[in-house]
């Protein structure tokens, strides 16, 4: 915690800011990429959202109160950016965000940056059929392997509720996988 405070101080000090921000970029670009990609699915969209996320993080560093961890604060920004992006894209296409997600997943085979096999495609289809919150919890727990405590801080939801969400999600996914 002390180390993090020191790191935040470096991020805010104009003399050390550049070096500290490069470290932040280096440490977080891959996990945040994976997090955003799991939500928006397409690589180019992920790239847009990830860039916006880092720019937002940089601009709002001075507003970061330190009440939560830098890690969860950044994940929260990334999650909000990704969900907002999906909603806006869906609106532009005259679809609901669920319809858009389903459309993207149904065409996932044609995506140049997806090389999943049949079972991976089936899993993506099973996930997209879940309610939005369950999708998010499942992806963060299963693919990103985040701890419930971490997810709890990012999504501001109790660990108990997250466990219930994940449990429901797994049940529905297994049902889908067995019936399709």
């Amino acid at each position, binding site marked *: 915690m002390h180390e993090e405070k020191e790191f935040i101080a470096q991020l805010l000090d104009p003399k050390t800011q550049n070096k500290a921000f490069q470290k932040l970029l280096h440490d977080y*670009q891959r996990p945040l990429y994976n997090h955003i990609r799991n939500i928006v699915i397409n*690589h180019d969209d992920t790239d847009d959202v990830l*860039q916006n996320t880092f720019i937002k993080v*940089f601009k709002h560093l001075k507003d970061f109160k330190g009440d939560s961890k830098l890690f969860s604060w950044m994940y929260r920004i990334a999650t909000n950016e990704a969900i907002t992006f999906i909603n806006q894209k869906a609106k532009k296409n005259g679809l609901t965000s669920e319809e858009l997600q389903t459309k993207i997943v149904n065409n996932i085979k044609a995506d140049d940056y*997806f*090389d999943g096999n049949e079972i*991976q495609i089936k899993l993506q289809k099973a996930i997209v059929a879940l309610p939005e919150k369950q999708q998010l919890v499942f992806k963060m727990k299963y693919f990103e392997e985040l701890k419930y405590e971490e997810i709890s801080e990012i999504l501001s939801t109790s660990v108990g509720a997250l466990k219930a969400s994940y449990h429901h999600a797994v049940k529905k996914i*297994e049902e889908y*996988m067995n019936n399709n």
Partner: protein
Amino acid sequence: MKPFKLDNEQKIKSGFKIPDGYFEKLTTEINAKLADNEPKVVSIFSRKKVFYYAVAAVLVLALSIPLFNYYNTTISLSQEEVEDYITLQSGITEDDLVNALDKEDIEKLKVDLKIEDKVLEETLLNNTNLEEYITD
């Protein structure tokens, strides 16, 4: 066939690929965007600029002196001259004046003359042309 159980299966990966060299490119792009967003401090007091602005200001002032003198000739007119002009020179008719006045103007024009009854009587007695007063 055994029913599908997520925990019994080998971990299924998302299947997403990342283009080669993507993260190197990303760092460059983000840094470039942040550099573009930084407000540039431009001194408005750079010596060269101040000199040019000063020269321009002097020139504008110098050129405007003759113009100022030319246009700045205010003619003062007395009340009498204005009245004379309106009654004698202009083409304004009485009707025009009446139309130009509204009720409020007319109220303002009313002068409360305190004429004593005696004076009024004398005037009426001495003046043979009573019709003028009656009709007005």
